[in-house]
């Protein structure tokens, strides 16, 4: 088996699954899930061999190039893990032939992208993934078309920016393969390097959902079919991380821009890019705190975490690179777990509005546990894996002496406590609504993948060395520095982090609390309405669950913040106005104008060309 076989199988599987699902939907979905799991297992366990393949045929000069280096393996494993767990997860949700067809195409595109060895191959497969995900987003909910168009517009901006970079590279360097470009780009004048970097950066920002191209995430992630949101947020945005890693770390952007002004050891271009990441963290965090719909909230959380990844991979340096790569892994796990938990809740309660639910911890305890661990990871608290990546990033920020970026990173961490708590309190804690009395836990086939992600989050929190070692292999192959790890310890600048020790302390603390709980008297269960609040007896269940606008003071604080959400619609209006003007000039109702234009152009051209 080779990559090409897997890719070809993925592509051809799409129409096959479509036809099968016309006959029996569940069989097709089972086949799809099985296929994804098999691909993941193949990639994870046999990959990383470093082989590469070349297939003739994009244009007469450019070919598809695939490879299986450690970088490809890392990203492929993450993407396929998310896709395969979601593929199993989505089985009870609403199925349709169109959805399974588009899902297969999305997967095939993502696979081709992570196995690419040159920019054009990456671009082409990424585009396949993009247009099929656009069609997938609009499958379920009515408001999705208005949101998906924002994604289409921003994705188009990103894609064409990348195409510009690719063909500019081709015309200047004669090649678009990663390794060849890395060698040749240093000798190019600074303007060329800058153009390529910025053009690729636009694509990264657009696809990761980072400031200033973040406005599409909120709508697309929230109105996408519930089974697709984990893939979109946990898998597809990480392709942006792949490109970011290549352009920032693998291509020697630091050496190349070394002649430009340097701020605290970082070239100004990279610093500017990191600054955008920092702003993204802050914007994502603030906006997430203000959301009332769980999926929109997690979407903004994705904006914020994409900011972390952009920040980390732009600053460069051993710890930030390791931290950034680890954060890609962590956020993929956590974000997918969060979206899956919300999807499970929505499957049972038919809503994602947090203030319409409450008290579901008693009915859906496993889902609650999954969600809890995921948010602990997003907030960056040990012993989950989220802590390690943030810790490494902080190390680098401190070493380089970057106060503003460090402030943004800390703000994101602390702010994330607030926004991750909101769905927890709104959905799981508090009072159970009477209409949700009959709600049961999610079916096993949904629980299993979620639990797997949770266990992995905890595993890599307790043994982060496992993940760091793989990342070290990657950075070594590029020629960068590695992070010192032993079995349980990570050695960094301000000290070391012994995860096993910390976990043991946590476990002991947990055991003590458990002991106290068991020994103490049992709580007496009372009915919801056997209660009073604010000195008054209430007879409406909703009023006992305080979760609507629970951060109202914070909301008021940021109400008048400038918002970028309208720039797309304003641009669209301006284009329409320009179109009306052009129409009046060139496509006037009077044919005399056409003749006049013809004569003017001929005379003008003759005068100019003579």
């Amino acid at each position, binding site marked *: 088996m080779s990559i090409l076989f897997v890719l070809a199988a993925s592509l051809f599987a799409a129409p096959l699954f479509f036809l099968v699902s016309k006959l029996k939907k569940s069989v097709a979905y089972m086949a799809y899930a099985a296929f994804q799991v098999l691909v993941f297992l193949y990639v994870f366990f046999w990959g990383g061999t470093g082989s590469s393949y070349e297939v*003739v045929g994009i244009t007469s000069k450019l070919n598809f190039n695939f490879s299986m280096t450690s970088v490809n393996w890392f990203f492929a494993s993450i993407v396929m893990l998310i896709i395969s767990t979601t593929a199993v997860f989505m089985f009870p949700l609403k199925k349709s032939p169109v959805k399974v067809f588009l899902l297969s195409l999305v997967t095939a595109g993502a696979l081709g992208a992570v196995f690419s060895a040159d920019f054009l191959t990456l671009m082409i497969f990424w585009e396949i993934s993009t247009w099929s995900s656009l069609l997938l987003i609009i499958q379920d909910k009515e408001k999705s078309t208005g949101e998906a168009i924002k994604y289409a517009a921003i994705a188009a901006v990103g894609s064409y920016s990348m195409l510009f970079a690719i063909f500019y590279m081709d015309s200047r360097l004669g090649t678009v393969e990663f390794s060849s470009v890395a060698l040749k780009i240093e000798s190019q004048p600074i303007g060329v390097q800058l153009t390529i970097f910025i053009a690729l950066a636009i694509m990264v920002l657009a696809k990761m959902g980072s400031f200033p191209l973040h406005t599409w995430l909120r709508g697309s992630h929230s109105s996408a079919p519930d089974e697709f949101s984990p893939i979109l947020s946990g898998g597809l945005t990480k392709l942006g991380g792949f490109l970011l890693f290549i352009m920032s770390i693998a291509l020697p952007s630091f050496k190349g821009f070394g002649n430009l002004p340097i701020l605290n050891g970082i070239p100004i271009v990279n610093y500017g890019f990191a600054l955008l990441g920092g702003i993204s963290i802050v914007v994502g965090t603030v906006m997430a705190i203000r959301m009332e719909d769980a999926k929109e909230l997690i979407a903004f959380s994705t904006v914020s975490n994409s900011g972390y990844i952009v920040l980390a991979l732009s600053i460069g340096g051993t710890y930030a690179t390791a931290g950034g790569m680890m954060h890609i892994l962590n956020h993929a796990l956590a974000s997918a777990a969060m979206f899956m938990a919300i999807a499970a809740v929505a499957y049972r309660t038919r809503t994602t509005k947090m203030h319409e639910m409450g008290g579901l911890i008693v009915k859906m305890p496993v889902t609650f546990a999954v969600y809890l661990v995921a948010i602990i990871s997003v907030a960056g608290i040990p012993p989950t894996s989220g802590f390690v990546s943030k810790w490494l990033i902080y190390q680098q920020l401190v070493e380089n002496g970057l106060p503003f970026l460090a402030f943004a990173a800390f703000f994101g961490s602390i702010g994330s406590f607030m926004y991750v708590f909101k769905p927890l309190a709104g959905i799981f804690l508090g009072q159970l609504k009477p209409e949700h009395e009959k709600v049961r836990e999610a079916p096993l086939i949904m629980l299993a993948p979620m639990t797997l992600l949770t266990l992995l989050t905890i595993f890599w929190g307790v043994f982060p060395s496992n993940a760091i070692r793989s990342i070290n292999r990657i950075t070594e192959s590029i020629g960068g520095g590695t992070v010192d790890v032993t079995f349980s310890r990570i050695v960094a600048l301000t000290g070391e982090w012994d995860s096993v020790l910390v976990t043991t302390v946590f476990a002991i603390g947990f055991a003590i609390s458990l002991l106290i709980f068991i020994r103490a008297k049992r709580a007496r269960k009372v009915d919801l309405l056997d209660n009073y609040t604010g000195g008054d007896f209430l007879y409406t269940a909703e009023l006992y669950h305080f979760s609507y606008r629970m951060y109202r003071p914070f909301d008021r604080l940021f109400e008048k913040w400038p918002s970028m959400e309208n720039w797309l619609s304003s641009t669209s209006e301006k284009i329409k106005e320009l*179109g009306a003007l052009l129409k009046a000039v060139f496509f006037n109702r009077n044919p005399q104008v056409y003749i006049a234009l013809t004569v003017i152009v001929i005379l003008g051209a003759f005068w100019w060309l003579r």
Partner: protein
Amino acid sequence: MNPVWLIAIPLALAFVSAFWRSVSGWVLIIAAFFNAFAGVFGVMSLTVTSFSIGGWKAPYGISLLVNDATKLLLPVANILFLFAVLSYLRKGGETARYSVVFLVALASLNGILLTNDLFNLFVFLEIAGITAYLLASTGEGSGSKVASFKYLIIGSVGSLLYLLGVAILYGAAGTLNISELAARVSSGQISGDVTLVSSLLIVAGLGVESKLLPFNGWVPDVLTKSSRVATLVLASVYPLAMVYAFSKVLLAVGDDRVLNLVVLLGIATVLVGEVIAFGQKSLRRTLAYSSIAQSGLAIFLVGVGSVESVTGSIMLLINNALSKFMLFSIDDQVIDEAGRDDRDTLYGYGRKSPIVGVTFVISALSIAGMPLFFGFRGKLNAISASFDTSLAVPVVILVAAAIEVTYYFRWIFTFFNPVGTSQVTEKRMLPSVEFLAFGLVLSTVIVFLGVSSGEAFTMFERAADSLVNGVLAIGKAILGGM
């Protein structure tokens, strides 16, 4: 088979149809079938390239040229024409009533594709133009007559300018044979001023029909208001012939400075077309402006003039013909059912009629240039070639492309907008058999060409090579022989 039959048969049958009304519908079908088969089988196997008419050898007489480019475009044009004629056979006697016009149009389009003589090209352009004016007026209501009238005015002016350009060139070079002229122009025998003026006039003349800015004022009204089959022919078959004529003539006799102007005008056409298309509320108008932009892109690539860019031009041309055929057919279906084609009417149409929806997605994504579809391959060539000139060119093209992708996706989303549960139980609508058949064929071609490996594209490269280098080679051979 002598390709002159592709011109002669429809023309002869047109006379038959004019005088014998009752069989006019059948005659048109016979001619369309004959041309389609002859276009595919008769032409593909030809090895001889040059056919002289009336026994006068080139360069003294008119000759027809069959090179790799015509071998590619003739079958496509004739088959699309056949599809167009068959599409609305059962509904209404439009084809029967206007069969003379269609037959003459078919003959003239083939003539444009085949001819290797400038004045002969003028004659066929005039014929094609007149039939186009007539076809444009076939719509209901007075709007189409006004549109046709505007087309008539600008078209006539264009033809005159073209003729003037040809006359100047003839006066200086003494020959009308395109190949020989190519040899003479490239060897510098003709004064720079002459080539400049004649090229400018020819650009203006051919630009009218090829939808180049600023000569394309007629396009939106004509494409929006003419009737069903006429629109299909005008939007998918005519551009093939006209842009090919533009390429053929300008690559052969065009002055280099004028080719730079063509690049500029082409980019302007693309940008203006896409920007205006973005704001349109009716699907048909969007498609009309999109056609302008696609023509602009193809012509800009001709202006660049390298083999790579002309390959892209031919690919985009064929992609546009196939996709626009389906898109305009879909629009016809919608107007048939609902009377209008604005956003509100189209909401959720693709869910009620999935086959129409899928065909729409395939054609729209192909024109927008998404991978897995044919349009993407052409677009790659286009972007790659656009870096040959200044850096501003690819920026403009990519901005226009981003705008194009956005509005096409907006239409796709309109088609597939999830409708409320109350409307889900509506019966699924089946399109006509012809639509199913032709839609299947064209979609398969688009997807097949989209995913096939590079080898399939050598035929496009050979076609481009024959345009860029082949004509010149023939001309040198003729000159050498004299």
